[in-house]
């Protein structure tokens, strides 16, 4: 499933170029680094901090039709878990394909236990459904 990761900060593209070229930690960056110096995009997604002019650590998963399916936010001082982001992305792709299934919290990848047709019959039986 084709997906593009793009990062965005309120830096300009010139700043991205300079940092990526000179900072060893960024040497392996392959994804496009987006420039949002006016904060327009950050405001649109509610991650713009008016006090600092910076974007908070917000992550958004948008499907191929342009619909938003995942949004999460961290304050400045907590990093994100990339495994969890990948899990949520894979789960979104999975349930997009299998619309009668849902991915529970322990779901990690295709083949893991899902709940099928969650509805009235599953009330009080979720534990059994997760074991079965």
């Amino acid at each position: 499933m084709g997906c593009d990761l793009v990062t965005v900060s309120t830096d300009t593209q010139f700043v991205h170029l300079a940092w990526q070229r000179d900072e060893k930690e960024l040497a392996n960056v392959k994804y496009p680094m987006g420039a949002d110096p006016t904060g327009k995009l950050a405001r649109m997604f509610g991650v713009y901090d008016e006090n600092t002019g910076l974007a908070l650590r917000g992550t958004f998963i948008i499907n191929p039709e342009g619909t938003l399916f995942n949004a999460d936010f961290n304050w400045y001082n907590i990093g994100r878990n990339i495994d969890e982001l990948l899990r949520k992305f894979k789960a979104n792709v999975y349930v997009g394909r299998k619309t009668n299934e849902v991915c529970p919290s322990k779901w990690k990848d295709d083949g893991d236990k899902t709940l099928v047709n969650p509805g009235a019959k599953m009330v009080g039986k979720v534990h059994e459904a997760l074991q079965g």
Partner: protein
Amino acid sequence: MSECCGGVKLGQKVPDFEFTTYEPTKGEFGKFSLAEQVKNKRWTILFFYPADFTFV
């Protein structure tokens, strides 16, 4: 700061947006737009962060 999620909502279409990028694989500047992603039927992960010298 504004309320959570600004103008976008889960389960709803995101209004089109476009911004300039730096493309490390090419060493050039480029453009990224949601309309282009939809046209090419591709998923998008938008990953905001405060500044280039911070962690993810």
